[in-house]
Structures are given as structure tokens and as C-alpha cells.
């Protein structure tokens, strides 16, 4: 059985990036694609080749490289993070009083978009809300018939804008600063109050109530006489249903760029070459005596600056270097097909690293469910 050389394996792994096109984009590691080669799934081989390198791990900003998986799998993790990991968000609003200038439906929508956080343990234990069964007359009549302390959280927003003492006189004198004239003229996300009920009163950590992640998000501005009084119900949902349920601000990956300098780029050209890339990607190094001896292109160029790749990771693959005639046939750009540089930024309800683990878990759960369905199927 022929085994491909390391060089050949690398060639297959690189997606070529030319000035106008992208080549060799599809993976070919399937049985039957390369004559005589075995590409069957092998868990031990996968285990050996899989590599994960962390670059940053903050609660709201995770960056790591996932090396040695196929695009379809990396993409599945990304898609699950965006659309299938559940979070809690405001879903129904009961408006008792709203005389602000934002109408009920728009205000409700704004409230729904506010990212929430709270006791992680309690949130984890919260179950799915099921919409009332339309065939069951007892439950179908109202949405709240399915509200229980294990699947719904309650929040309230109550505020009334009034004149400050002496505010009217100040206004008559021409004062326009609302801070000096009115009480409660701006309503922020921090004004949302958690109203635990039932078992939540015991189970929910009182030091970590349900609240807005960013307290200073502006919800509405008001003027004297205006009032809002709203009761909100939050439940768990997924990003596939509405983007407000998506636990991530960003979950994306890019492929590791490669830059191959085929022929030496020297002197002023080297400087120009380095300028085609973001800072830190290309370094300038003087040509050594040994190099000048060995390479005919470098004869007599000892001491001159030569462009070398310092850190391709930082490249944005702008392809700028391909636009200049002096670099023609001297450089080759590419990307490593199985090196995914993930970037996950959580909105705050989860930690970013937890989100990735959860996405892997959910893919597994998906498979389990399908397997169960398959077993129950008539063959």
C-alpha cells in the first residue's frame, strides 16, 4: 500500500489562494479517492492527529486552534454554538401601564433583546417551556397556563418620571438638562428586577439574581407624567428560533494562513513586501555569508535585507502581495485546510469555553437521538 510522502500530504492539506481564485478547496481524505491508500475512519489515528492549542481564554473571549478535524465537523460545532445552545431571554411582556413614547410592541421587543445572566446552576436546571397544547382546552386558553417555577423566570420593570423639586421653575428659567429637572427620566437595563417565585425563592442564589449583563443599556427615556409598569416572563430558547437566544456574540473560525516565499525577496523589495502584510507577519533579516554562497539568487547580496515569514498566524490573507509584479512567482499564499482558529465571544450567560464543550456535547446528543430514531424505525 503506497503511503504518500510528507510533502504530498502537506500539498493536499493546503488550500491555494491565488489573486483571483481559491484552489484545492475540497478535502480528499476519503477511501477510494487516492488509489491504494486507506483513508477509512480510524479513531486512534484521529486521537493522535487531533491537537487543540489555546490562544486566549477569557469568559467573554475564547480563542483556540482546533487542528486535525474536517471542515464539516468544525462547522457543526460553530453552527451549534450560534443556533442550538439554549439561553434565557425575555419572551412575553405584560404591559400594565406604558405611557412612554415607545409603543408596547417596540418596547417589548427591546426588552427581549437584553442579554441576561444569573445563578448559573439555577439557569442550568431550568427546563424548556412548552407552548400550551392547542387541543387541550384547559391549557390552550392562555399562554401562562404553562408557566411554572421550573421553566419560567419573572422580571418586573416599574418606573414613573416626575418633576424634581423646583424643576418646573428651573425649566421656566431656560434650564434644559434633564438630570436637573426630572426624576427617573432614563430607564436602564439595571432597572429590571427579578421576581423569583415558587421553588426559585429557595433554589436561586440570592447573591446572583437574574439581571441584565450590561446594567447601563438604555431601554427608554421618559418625561414627567410618563410611566411604565411591565411584567416579563423569560424562558429558555435557542438561536435557531430567535437571535436573542443565541449565547454568542461571535462564534467563528478562520483557517491558518500559510505564506511560502519561493524565491528570495531582497532589499527595497523586501521592505515593500513586508508592508503588504499586517505588522509582525514578515520579518527582515540580513542575508548571511553562507546563504549568499549557497543560493545563486543571493550571490553578492550578503548583508542586504531578506524577507522571511515570522508569524503567518497574524496574516489576514489580504492578497495584497499578489498585486505587485515584482513578487510574481516569488510567493505562494495558502491556508491549512484542517487548522481552524476558533474565536468565541459569549454574551455572558455562559463562559466561552463552556460553550464550545456544550456544542460538542450537543452534537453527540443529536447523534444519540438519531440513533434511537433509527432503532425504532421499521427496517
Amino acid at each position: 500500500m503506497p503511503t504518500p510522502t510528507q510533502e504530498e500530504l502537506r500539498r493536499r492539506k493546503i488550500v491555494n489562494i491565488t489573486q483571483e481564485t481559491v484552489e484545492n478547496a475540497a478535502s480528499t481524505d476519503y477511501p477510494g479517492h487516492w488509489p491504494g491508500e486507506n483513508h477509512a475512519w480510524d479513531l486512534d489515528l484521529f486521537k493522535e492527529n487531533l491537537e487543540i492549542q489555546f490562544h486566549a481564554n477569557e469568559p467573554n473571549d475564547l480563542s483556540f486552534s482546533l487542528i486535525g478535524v474536517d471542515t464539516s465537523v468544525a462547522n457543526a460545532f460553530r453552527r451549534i454554538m450560534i443556533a442550538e445552545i439554549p439561553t434565557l431571554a425575555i419572551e412575553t411582556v405584560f404591559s400594565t401601564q406604558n405611557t412612554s413614547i415607545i409603543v408596547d410592541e417596540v418596547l417589548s421587543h427591546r426588552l427581549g433583546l437584553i442579554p441576561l445572566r444569573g445563578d448559573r446552576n439555577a439557569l442550568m436546571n431550568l427546563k424548556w417551556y412548552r407552548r400550551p397544547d392547542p387541543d387541550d382546552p384547559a391549557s390552550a386558553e392562555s399562554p401562562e397556563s404553562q408557566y411554572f417555577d421550573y421553566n419560567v423566570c419573572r422580571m418586573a420593570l416599574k418606573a414613573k418620571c416626575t418633576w424634581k423639586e423646583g424643576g418646573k421653575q428651573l425649566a421656566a428659567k431656560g434650564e434644559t438638562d434633564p438630570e436637573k429637572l426630572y426624576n427617573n427620566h432614563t430607564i436602564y437595563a439595571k432597572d429590571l428586577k427579578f421576581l423569583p417565585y415558587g421553588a426559585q425563592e429557595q433554589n436561586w442564589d440570592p447573591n446572583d439574581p437574574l439581571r441584565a449583563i450590561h446594567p447601563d443599556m438604555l431601554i427608554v427615556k421618559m418625561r414627567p407624567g410618563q410611566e411604565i409598569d411591565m411584567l416579563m416572563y423569560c424562558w429558555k430558547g435557542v438561536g435557531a428560533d430567535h437571535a436573542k437566544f443565541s449565547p454568542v456574540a461571535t462564534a467563528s473560525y478562520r483557517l491558518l494562513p500559510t505564506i511560502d516565499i519561493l524565491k528570495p525577496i531582497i532589499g527595497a523589495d523586501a521592505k515593500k513586501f513586508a508592508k503588504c502584510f499586517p505588522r509582525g507577519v514578515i520579518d527582515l533579516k540580513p542575508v548571511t555569508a553562507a546563504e549568499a554562497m549557497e543560493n545563486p539568487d543571493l550571490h553578492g547580496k550578503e548583508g542586504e535585507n531578506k524577507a522571511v515569514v515570522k508569524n503567518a498566524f497574524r496574516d489576514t490573507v489580504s492578497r495584497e502581495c499578489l498585486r505587485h509584479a515584482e513578487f510574481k512567482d516569488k510567493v505562494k499564499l495558502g491556508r491549512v485546510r484542517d487548522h481552524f482558529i476558533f474565536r468565541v465571544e459569549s454574551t455572558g450567560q455562559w463562559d466561552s469555553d463552556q460553550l464550545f464543550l456544550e456544542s460538542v456535547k450537543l452534537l453527540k446528543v443529536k447523534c444519540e437521538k438519531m440513533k434511537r430514531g433509527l432503532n425504532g424505525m421499521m427496517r
Partner: protein
Amino acid sequence: MPGQQQLQDIDMRDDTPLTGISAYDNEGYNATDEKERVRVLAGATETAASFQFDGEDHTLGNALRYMIMKNPDVEFCGYSIPHPSEDKMNLRIQTYDNVSVYDVLEKGLNDLMEMCDVVMDKFTIAREDFQAAMQQEA
């Protein structure tokens, strides 16, 4: 009269206490439709069949297609989403002689699950190593 209304709590029905149900079911948002979400489309033989998955999309479709194509007994595997407004995913498998498509599909799902375990383990280890390295630096 507006402004005079008091916030009225909505009466909530008491529920029977939870027993025997795991608190976090972790079953995904469409867990209620646990009933047949996979079916075989008409015209199937033992070595060639199209499966239809309800409520699945490219997430499972493409990953599963990759895993099944990795199986040397498989002649062809492909997936499609026939219509964007229908929540369905079709998966076509054709195998070489005397290999059951059902076994191939099951193996694909098993391989995918095993792969998930490996990724989870490696990720956890890499995270611990990274945290240890960061602490040493600090």
C-alpha cells in the same frame, strides 16, 4: 383609570413536584417530537436508501455525510436540504454489495459520537494546560 391600576399578579397553577425527571433534559429544543424523526424514503433497497431526518440541517447533515464517506464500504453518500422552508434533511447512502445501509448509518453515528468524546477530552486537557501555563507566567 390609567396610572391607578395596580400590578396584578397572574395566578399560576400549582404543578406536581418533579420526581424522576432529570432537571436539565439536555434534549435540544425539539425534544417533544421524539417520535419518528428519521424515515426511509420510497424506493430503498438493502444497499441503497435515502433517509429523511426531521428538524435537522447542515449541522448534522454535513458532519454525518463526512463520517459515512469515511467508511470504505460506502460507494456514495450525500445529503441535501430539499427546500429551505421545510425543516427536513435528506441523506442518501449507497453501499457496495452485501453491506446494509442501515449498519453504515449506525456506524456513522457511532463514529461521530466517539469523535465528540475525543474532542471534548482533548479540549478539557488543553484548557487545563493553558490555565496552568498562564498561572505560572503570572
